[in-house]
């Protein structure tokens, strides 16, 4: 069995005695995976990120990277890691090129990589602008470019698509997936956007109130949230519900014009539609709810 690239054992952390931020986290990031670290705001994602990058110290429990304790390997471990924590750290008075040059100097990398990496994130030709002139999206891309320099084995990204427009989000997502497939780059990405995690990640860890509620592959996640939910838009929902309630017992009214029905799987959807029509329920819209999202919301209430 290959060792996980990141291994957190009984990790606990608190700033002060009364307020624990992380409680006994046990987390494993397999090599070559894209691991989504999911949780609502304030769950402890950023704190975990900061512990992984040694910005915060004084924790209980073990943090192991590449099979060895993190403490032993800093700061040289950063030749193998690219990290982007919270808002991008850029020198606004320097140009994009110069910012990247700082990294290449620190990591002893050939400067030739700079235009390559600028092209990768879609900032080709913008390298000579001062960073303070960049838009938020451009800053984010530049920060991602900085993490890519030096061919790292592991990327630690904290909300990397923050501030990007939809096309930007897509581009970044496709880039990360490509890098993972072609280079075997492990990516540990934290986000509160479930949709993004769903589209990109191979593994998921869900954190809430400092505790890890779930960890596993996307497949395992899908199984957990296997129940399929349909929302039907109609009129007089309460009345209409009564008509189908006999067969579909797991249903409830949402508001005056909507009610929800829980099915075992999405294959049962046509049956429901047909049944509703037979019963004379006016159907304005039949919508499949995101099962994962609901499950996630219920998990993190």
């Amino acid at each position, binding site marked *: 069995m290959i060792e996980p690239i990141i291994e957190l054992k009984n990790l606990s952390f608190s700033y002060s005695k009364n307020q624990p931020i992380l409680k006994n986290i046990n987390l494993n990031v397999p090599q070559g995976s894209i691991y989504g670290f999911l949780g609502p705001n304030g769950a402890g994602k950023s704190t975990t990120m900061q512990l992984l*990058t*040694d*910005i915060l110290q*004084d924790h209980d429990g073990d943090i192991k990277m590449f099979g060895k304790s993190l403490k032993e390997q800093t*700061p*040289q*471990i*950063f*030749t193998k*890691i690219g*990290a982007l*924590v*919270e*808002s991008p*750290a*850029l*020198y*606004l*008075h*320097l140009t994009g090129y*110069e910012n990247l*040059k*700082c*990294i290449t*100097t*620190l*990591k*002893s990398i050939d400067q030739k990589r700079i235009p390559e990496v600028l092209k990768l994130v879609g900032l080709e030709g913008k390298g000579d602008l001062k960073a303070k002139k960049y838009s938020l999206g451009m800053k984010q891309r530049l920060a991602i470019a900085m993490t890519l320099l030096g061919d790292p084995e592991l990327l630690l990204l904290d909300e990397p698509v923050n501030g990007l427009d939809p096309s930007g989000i897509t581009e970044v997502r496709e880039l990360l997936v490509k890098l993972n497939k072609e280079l075997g780059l492990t990516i540990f990405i934290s986000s509160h956007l479930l949709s993004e995690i769903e589209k990109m990640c191979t593994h998921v860890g869900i954190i809430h109130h400092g505790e890890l509620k779930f960890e596993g592959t996307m497949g395992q996640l899908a199984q957990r949230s296997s129940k399929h939910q349909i929302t039907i838009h109609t009129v007089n929902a309460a009345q209409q519900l009564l008509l189908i309630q006999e067969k579909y017992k797991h249903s409830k009214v949402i508001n005056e014009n909507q009610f929800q029905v829980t099915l075992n799987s999405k294959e049962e959807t046509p049956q429901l539609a047909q049944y509703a029509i037979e019963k004379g329920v006016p159907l304005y819209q039949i919508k499949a709810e995101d099962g994962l999202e609901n499950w996630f919301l219920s998990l993190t209430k």
Partner: protein
Amino acid sequence: MLHNFKTALQTERIKIKRSGIFTLGFILALIMPLLYFTIQIIQGDMYNDRIVDTNFYFHFYKNPLAGLTGFFLPLLIIITASKIAQIDHKNKGWQLMEMQPISKLSIYFSKFLILCFNVFLTVLLYTVASLFFAWLYHTFSDVHESYDMSLPLSEIGYASIRVFVASLAILAFQYALSVIISGFIWSLVIGFAMLLAQLFLSSFQIDLRWYPHNFLFVSGMNPTGGLLGSFFLPAEWLSMVYTVFFLFVGYNWYRFKGFYSAFAKAVPRAITSLLILAVCSGLAYYLIMPKTLEAFDKTVVKGTISSDKNFKNIYVRDIMTQDTMAVIAVKNNKFRHEFKEELAPQFYNIQFDKYNAIDIFMGANDSIQLKETLYGKDASVSVLGTRISENKQQIFYGTTGFSYVGYQIENNSSLEKVAYYMKEIYSEYEEDLSELKNSISVDHIKAREDFLNRSKKLIAVKYINKWNNYLKKKAIYNPEVPVVLTPDMNVLLSSVSYTDDALLSDRLYFDFIKNHLADSNKEAIDQGKTNLELIADLEEGTFKNKMLFTEIRSQLNDQVKIAQRDSIFNAFAAVVTNDSYRDILDYQRKSLNKLSRGVEAVDFLSMDKDGKQYTLADFKGKYVLIDSWASWCGPCKAQEPYYVKKMIKYRKENIVFVSMNMDEKESNWLEDLTEMNTEIVQLRPLNVDAYGALYNIDSIPRYILIAPDGTIDDAAFTPPVNNAFDDLLDAKLGLNTRP
């Protein structure tokens, strides 16, 4: 590890692009030399005067240096330290850097090194600029030929290196502050406050030897370094100690992100921190505390001479007896003498051949090194050795500044306020005492106990005198007001002994004792007893001998007639039980008698500039006033204009004004003659030494008045600058009988 540091440095260089850090250094380096140059060009007269032993380039470098070290360099440090830390504070750069493969050590020290380099370049540029502007000034304006125009590269380099070292303490401190505090304003505010505090302190001449900004100030004010010969001044060593300490604190505070985590949390770290604190405090304490110089194992006076004149001997004299204790031969412009006898710690007079003299404080087991410089009439003596502080202060009577109390006594203001006067006199006394304690040289050397005790006593004497003056005045104007002495005043009045013979050589103490004798024996004085009689009545001992000797000698000098002089001598010399004192008095009596009024003035040959010969007999029938002078004698030159004025005033009277030159070299006389008055008879003895011996000329200027009958009227007439000159001459010439 080194590679780590190198990459950190290279990255810093990228980060400081367009930050203005080096540009600021460039500008601030140039301000002072440019300013100084501009002022000198406009004023145009600073370098026109004759000077001695001064290098022009060094002078141009040194004068604006205090501006750099006092203001612009600290300013540069405050601003650039803040700037370089803010580059990372602003952009979350610290976090970014800490996620790269470089150690926190490299991160912290790479920035510090850049700041150091900047300060170094600034000092270097200042140096180069001041040399450049000096050269520019020299090209466009006049510099007197007496200035040394060689390039003093090693002296200037030495001064600049020390200034750089002295600035490091402030740099380490400001840098630590700027890294620890993420807001930009606080490090600037604290930095400026500390800078202003130093400006304030230095304007009041308060020398806080432990204050970091003081190190740079002291270094800039002493570009030639200290007097003890060590490479760095104590202030500069202190700067190094403080720098290490601030770097340790700053780095660890940054590394562990908090004071507690850095120094108190883990036991080994706490121990290391305490150790560093202890070591640095210990070193700092050692450097700050003033030391006294170690005694020497012999008693030696030695030195060198730099002059255009020929020096044969150096004379060491006891001030009180004027007795020559040693005659030191000068060989190759060097001299050295070891005293085999025990010397009491007091002031001694050192006379450089026949030229200038200086009073030096020394005692047994002291080594005194003198450097005599005499060119033309400008003489200066520098004193080094084991009594540096003492000889900087000379005869210390405390502040010679304005005494408000003295002024009030003079003007008889509110003499009835006894308590007020007591308080004021005592407080001025305390001020003088504290100034005595605070005079510490730039090498942190303080005077030894024997000197301090002596000076304390003399200061007390000064203020007891003031109090007595006050009492005298009060007795006249407000005799009815009672005087109740406060405990402080009692302390003051009892702090001086009336039988301290070691202090007798000091004029202030001698007069004090005389007055005390007079005051304590009022009835005897009323009955006609003289001072000499009072002194003669004292208990036998060294004190009495010294007092008697001094008083007899002064009275012998005052007497004009041989008969009076002899009568005093005969009456009181025998009471002096010290044989050598008696011999000295006898010798003095005889030599004064030789030159008493009425004695035939021994004639001698002299000539004018054309070689025409003269004798005193040529002037018989007239009064002859002879002014003995020399080209190297400053006081003689000072009297000259008055002499000319008097000559003009008495032109029509029965008197001839003569100036007799005593230079060793005729050429020196002839040179000076071109600028002197031609109506005065300008002569030079054919044998200068014989003339000097004949008339006991041991110091110049000396005025000798010969009567019309060829006898001596006064062998030591009053100098022309005094008002008494006219009164005395008028009397002799019979002029004051006229209406």
